[in-house]
C-alpha cells in the first residue's frame, strides 16, 4: 500500500497537473476519513443505497422464480433465449434517459434501472445453476418418491444456491453502480452520484471527487464482504462446493 501511495504522489508531483485537479494522496485519505462522519454526505449515500436495496428486494425473488422456470425446462429456455440475446447487449446506462422520462427523476427511476440491471445479471446465474444440478442426485431423489416440487425444493435449490448467491453478489455491485450512474447523469435531488457531480462541476476542489470515489469503492467492497458473510452463515454447505 505504501509503495502505491508513494507512486501516486510521485506521479502527481511530476505530471505537472495542478494540485487542485489532481490532489495528493494524503489529503484525499484524510478527506475520505472525515467523510465517514459527515452527516450531509452520509444522507446522500443512504439515498443511493435505498434505491439499490429496493431494487434488489424486488429483483431477487422475481428472478429466482423466472430463472428456476427457465432453468428447469429446456423448451422454455430456448424460447426465451431469443429475446434474452437481444436485450442483454443493451447497456443499462443507455436506458437512463428513457427511464427518466417514464419514471421521473425521483427514486423510482433509479429503482427501475437497478431492477433492469440486476435482473439480467442474476438470471443467467440462476439458469445455469439450476441446469448444473447433478442429474444423478435428482434421479435418486425421484426414486425415493419425491415429486417435481419435492426434487426442486430438496435437491435443486440447495445445490444451486451457492451459484445463485454469486449472481446476487454480482447484481448487487451492479445495482450500486447503476444507481450512481443514474444520479450522475440526471442529477436528482440526493444521492452519492449527485454529491460527486456537485463537487466536480463546482471545480473548486477535486479532492472531494477523489474522496467520494474512494468511499464508493469501499462501499462496494463492504457490501460484497457482507453478502459473503451472509452466504456463509445461511449456507454452510456452500463451502464444500467451493473447496471441491
Amino acid at each position: 500500500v505504501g509503495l502505491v501511495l508513494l507512486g501516486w504522489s510521485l506521479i502527481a508531483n511530476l505530471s505537472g497537473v495542478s494540485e487542485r485537479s489532481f490532489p495528493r494522496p494524503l489529503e484525499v485519505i484524510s478527506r475520505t476519513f472525515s467523510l465517514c462522519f459527515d452527516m450531509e454526505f452520509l444522507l446522500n449515500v443512504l439515498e443511493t443505497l435505498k434505491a439499490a436495496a429496493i431494487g434488489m428486494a424486488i429483483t431477487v425473488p422475481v428472478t429466482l422464480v423466472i430463472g428456476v422456470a427457465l432453468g428447469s425446462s429446456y423448451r422454455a429456455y430456448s424460447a426465451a433465449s431469443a429475446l434474452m440475446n437481444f436485450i442483454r447487449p443493451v447497456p443499462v446506462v443507455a436506458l437512463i434517459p428513457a427511464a427518466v422520462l417514464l419514471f421521473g427523476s425521483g427514486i423510482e427511476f433509479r429503482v427501475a434501472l437497478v431492477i433492469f440491471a440486476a435482473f439480467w445479471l442474476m438470471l443467467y446465474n440462476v439458469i445455469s445453476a439450476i441446469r448444473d444440478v447433478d442429474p444423478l442426485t435428482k434421479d435418486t431423489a425421484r426414486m425415493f418418491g419425491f415429486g417435481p416440487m419435492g426434487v426442486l425444493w430438496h435437491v435443486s435449490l440447495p445445490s444451486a444456491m451457492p451459484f445463485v448467491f454469486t449472481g446476487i453478489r454480482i447484481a448487487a455491485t451492479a445495482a450500486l453502480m447503476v444507481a450512481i450512474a443514474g444520479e450522475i447523469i440526471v442529477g436528482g435531488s440526493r444521492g452519492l452520484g449527485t454529491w460527486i457531480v456537485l463537487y466536480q462541476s463546482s471545480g473548486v476542489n477535486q479532492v472531494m471527487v477523489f474522496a467520494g470515489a474512494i468511499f464508493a469503492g469501499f462501499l462496494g467492497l463492504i457490501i460484497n464482504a457482507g453478502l459473503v458473510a451472509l452466504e456463509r452463515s445461511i449456507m454452510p454447505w456452500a463451502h464444500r462446493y467451493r473447496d471441491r
Partner: protein
Amino acid sequence: VSPQPHGKLPNAQSAIVKLIVLCLTAIAWEAGGRLADTPFFPPITTIASTIASEWFGGPGYQLFLSDSLIEIVWPSMTRLVPGLAFGLLLGIGAGTLFGLVRPVGDMFEPHIHFLRAIPSAVKVPLFMAVLGIGQDMKISLIAVSTALPLLLNTFDGVRTVDPMLLDTARLYRLSPWQRLACVILPSAAPKIFAGIKVSAGVAMVVLVLVEFVASADGIGHYILESQRRFRLLDMWAGVVLLAVLGYCFFGLLELVERRVLTWHRGARGATG
C-alpha cells in the same frame, strides 16, 4: 456426466419457437405502445420506420447506410476501438506479468480489486478531473475500465496453470519464451476469453457513460440529446442501434473464441 439437457428440441423447431417468441414480444410492445398512447413509449413500428427513414438509403459504397448514421457511430468507434485495444494489451500484459512474478502480483492484486470496486460511473468524474474532457480522457477511461476485469482473469489463468504441464515443458528444455507462448498462454486462454467478454460489456457501458457526460458526438450523446430535445423516437432508435451494435460485437467475440478455443472444447469433451 454429459450436460445434455432433457427434452432438447430439434434445431429447426427451436428456431421457429424463437421466432414466434420474438414476434409475440414485438406484438406486445406494439399493443402496449398503442394502448399507453404516450409519446414516451412509442410502438415498435414507429421506431422501426424512424430507423428506416433516417439511417438507411445511403449510397451503395456505404453499405446503404446514411450519412447521419455514420456521423453518429463513427465518433464512438474512434473511442471504443483504441480504448478496447489498449485495455486488452494492458489487461493481458499486466495480468501475465503478475501471474508469472507472484510477489508483484500478490502486492498489486488488492489494489486492482479496489480500483474495480469503484463504480465506473464514479470513474468518469474522476478521470475528467485529472485528464479533462478530451479524447485522451475517454480512451484512457475505456482502456483502464476494460483492463481491470481482464487483468484479474488473466492473473488467475496464468497463476493456475497445471504445474505438471510447466514441469514437463521444463523437462523438454523449452525456453522461458516458448513456455509462455506454448504452454502458459494457451492454458490460460479460456479464462482470458471469459475476461475479454466481461471487458467488452464494460467497454460498452463506459463508452455510453462517457458520451453522456462529456461528449459532443457519438451514440451516447445522440441518445441523451434526443431525450433533452424530446425527440423520443430518435432516442429509442439510438437505444436500438446500441443493442444491434452490441449484438454484432458479442457475436464477433463468440466467433473468435470458438475458433481460438476449439482444442479446449475438444479436450473437455474427451475427458468429460
